[in-house]
């Protein structure tokens, strides 16, 4: 049996974003990637999505920025980054030297910035793709994230798509009232793939309960705790779009990878657990290969969507005492 773990994240641009296996580092899980790339010879992640970059530099949020919760991380880094130009200047040369594809995550609340960043990246050979992060709070809409609104999400996607033919992944957030509507709009606007979910807004208190634990009060919840929410969102998206989905949220072991594939993901991203164990994404790629071999699966695409409702089941009234 020849085992094919490779997946295409932009099937309409064949070969442009072909991953050796389906497990990658999600945004924020490995900074701009170079520390990881340079330390790892084997067990490489399938790709690295960088932490989100903005057009201008940002100093990030007021500390403390992270709190450990049971099986979860609460964080609010606030997009600290030196701006796209500086990131490319300092980091991109080393990306070019690596065989791990680097996908640059960009974030902005207006079409101008998105276009400008996408255009800049389009001219660079070192970025293998672009992730557009829709978690950005929209100043025009009282800070509600772009990803909550169909029109805003669509505009943002078009702004990027119009100026580049780099593979474009659009990252949705869990909080949209109906994520399926956003997913459909984003796919129609030209996204090559969708990733989901980002962190879930949450809060934790200081030990003495005199205030919030993070400097910004609110933070994003990530890690194992959010997996059931991420699976729900990917399961919803997978039923309404045909483009590949990168399932993200709480992945920490092979079972989690298999779960995301089963609900329709083509690839799986890891941030929080990769902070604790940077080799995890690469190792899970190997574990997945071993699992496929042991279970007679020759292509991971066979696993994608296995748990989705099949059409023939719909409307069926026949079910036994326990509902099956």
């Amino acid at each position, binding site marked *: 049996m020849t085992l094919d773990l490779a997946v295409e994240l932009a099937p309409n641009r064949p070969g442009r974003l072909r991953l050796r296996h389906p497990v990658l580092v999600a945004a924020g899980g490995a900074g701009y990637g170079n520390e990881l790339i340079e330390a790892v010879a084997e067990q490489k992640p399938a790709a690295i999505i960088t932490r989100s970059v903005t057009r201008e530099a940002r100093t990030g949020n007021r500390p403390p920025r992270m709190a450990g919760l049971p099986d979860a991380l609460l964080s609010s880094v606030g997009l600290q980054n030196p701006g796209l130009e500086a990131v490319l200047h300092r980091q991109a040369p080393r990306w070019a030297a690596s065989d791990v594809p680097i996908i640059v995550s960009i974030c902005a609340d207006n079409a101008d910035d998105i276009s400008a960043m996408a255009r800049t990246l389009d001219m660079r050979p070192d970025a293998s793709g672009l992730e557009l992060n829709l978690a950005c709070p929209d100043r025009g809409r009282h800070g509600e994230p772009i990803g909550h609104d169909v029109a805003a999400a669509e505009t943002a996607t078009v702004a990027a798509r119009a100026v580049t033919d780099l593979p474009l992944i659009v990252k949705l957030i869990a909080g949209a009232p109906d994520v399926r509507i956003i997913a459909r709009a984003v796919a129609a606007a030209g996204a090559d793939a969708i990733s989901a979910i980002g962190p879930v807004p949450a809060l934790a208190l200081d030990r003495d309960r005199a205030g919030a634990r993070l400097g910004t009060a609110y933070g994003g919840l990530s890690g194992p705790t959010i997996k059931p929410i991420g699976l729900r969102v990917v399961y919803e998206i997978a039923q309404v779009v045909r483009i590949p989905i990168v399932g993200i949220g709480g992945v920490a072991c092979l079972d989690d990878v298999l779960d995301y594939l089963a609900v329709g993901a083509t690839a799986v991203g890891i941030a929080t657990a990769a902070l604790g*164990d940077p080799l995890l994404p690469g190792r899970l790629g190997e574990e997945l290969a071993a699992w496929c071999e042991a279970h007679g699966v020759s292509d991971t695409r066979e696993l994608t969507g296995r748990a989705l409702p099949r059409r023939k089941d719909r409307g069926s009234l026949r079910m036994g005492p326990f509902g099956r």
Partner: protein
Amino acid sequence: MTVLAAPRALRAAIATTPDPGEDVRLLETREFLPGRYLLRWAAAGIARRVRPGQFVHVMAPRTAGLLLPAVPVAGFDRAAEQITLLLSKEDGSALLALRPGDVARFDGPLGRGFEVDPRSRFLLVVTDTDGLARVRACVDEAVATSRQVALLLGARTIAEVPPSSLLPDEAEYVIATEDGSLGQRGGIAELVASYEAWADQCFVAGSDGLLRRVAKLAAGRDARMGVARLGRKRGRRPVRGASPRRRLTWLQVALPHEVGCALGVCLGCVVRGVDSQLRTCREGPAFAAPELRWELDQ
């Protein structure tokens, strides 16, 4: 419950230390205060290299790697090849479920520890119940190098005062409690003044309020003591945060570091420095007080 398999040593390969993770064996868990535990480990490699103020990253066992993987090394005995950690139940660390003989895997020592000037003879350590884990190793360092050391500890009440058995006999142990139930009544910071002339260097960890109070005191000390500004007489202006400069600073603080990559890439551990943002896991957890932006009310 998802539990990560033990990762290979990687952080070490990119972090400040060139050493891989180490399998360590639990020798003893002792509850020294209700809900607070001392864990003693056989950990030859870490014990040999650790400096006060450094931490280990717990790679296994852990609950999905998230529950406070970073733990300060609270004590060491290089001869016995042992280290101690102080953990509280609220930290929820998976280490507390282990029993003597069990093995864990630690990556470390990580981060920059305190810089003890070779010429310093008298070391002052200031802390509170929660901060103790981050500075207690200064006492071991002092004893191992035949320096004199005093540890000032503040607590709300006697019930939160760690027993003196946690410290070697050589250390002077001074206590203040807010309710006066043991030692001096009031905050421990108030006692620092009476040691500032005696101490060559001061190491502090604890609540934000304690750090601020001691930092404020230290900021005025140079003037009071008639001490030359550090490094002023040297030819080249030393780089802020460089070891030699830190070593010459009277006050160094160890900031808490509980979660994050410990690799320098996540920026979750950032604190505000005087002229840049500093990462607790790389530029810290020990800092010279003047490196940090205190914005004290003066």
